């Protein structure tokens, strides 16, 4: 079944098509959410939200962009919104603890990546990933989409709903920050410290 056929069936409300759609895209959506959020549970939650939104708004998809681009846009938007909510919750942790009805986590949960996954990642990779997670939201999104998902500037611009030159600027600033942060580490390594 081609993507356009799948899309037609999805718009018709076929549950089989929706299941096939989820099976096809769940890894990509989850992976992007995980790269942006850095937490498995949160990525799972956001990935579910993304598919729920697709389920509800598939009728609004007009095919102006590629289907995968549209999906990436929803995932990025949901992930960044999740990050903003998390930061707001942290900032007003005391107030929300008074008002909150659910027992939501207000602290940074430990890294729950699988042990074998950690073994695959080198120390340098982990350091780089940690530095990326400290970038401002839009820079982080642009960097993740371009370097980790391998998307060209043009597609990143469509996903972030901005211009190509704005994406270039975001990436330039992101790389400059990462270089400043990581330069001492690489200098230490090269000196044998």
């Amino acid at each position, binding site marked *: 079944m081609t993507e356009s056929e799948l899309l037609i069936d999805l718009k018709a409300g076929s549950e089989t098509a929706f299941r096939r759609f*989820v099976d096809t895209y769940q890894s990509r959506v*989850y992976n992007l959410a995980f*790269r942006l959020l850095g937490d498995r549970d949160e990525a*799972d939650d956001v990935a579910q939200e993304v598919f*729920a939104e697709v389920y509800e708004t598939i009728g609004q998809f007009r095919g102006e962009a590629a289907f995968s681009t549209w999906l990436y846009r929803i995932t990025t938007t949901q992930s960044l919104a999740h990050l903003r909510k998390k930061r707001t919750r942290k900032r007003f942790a005391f107030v929300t603890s008074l008002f909150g009805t659910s027992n939501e986590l207000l602290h940074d949960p430990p890294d729950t990546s699988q042990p074998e996954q950690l073994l695959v990642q080198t120390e340098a*990779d982990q350091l780089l990933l940690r530095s990326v997670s400290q970038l401002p939201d839009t820079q982080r999104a642009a960097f993740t989409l371009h370097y980790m998902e391998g998307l060209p500037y043009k597609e990143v611009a469509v996903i972030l709903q901005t211009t190509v030159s704005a994406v270039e600027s975001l990436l330039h600033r992101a790389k400059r920050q990462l270089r400043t942060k990581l330069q001492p580490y690489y200098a230490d*390594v090269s000196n044998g410290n």
Partner: protein
Amino acid sequence: MNESTPLNDDNRWEQRFSQLGELPPETPRPFFYTRLQARLEQQQATGWTPIWLRRPAYALSAFGLIVVLNAGALFYYSDSATTTDDVTTYDGFVADYQPTNSIDYVNE
């Protein structure tokens, strides 16, 4: 790229960043679709609820604030109304117009 090589030029940094794309992709836990289905069913069952219904504490706080503001306004205006009433009392009238107590019955 060798980690022991100092990263000085743009190309090496570019290469280093691009290596992140080679990391093995993260995959969701098993039974993702089942969890998603349960979420969708729950959403359909509960339907859409406004935020003030999901977090009644905020609605109650806002209501409390409105009550306090109204009470404050009531107190303020009732206080100022009392001072204006003073002017309309008999003493105020006398002080303003100073009428004489004598009544002339000219025609009698």
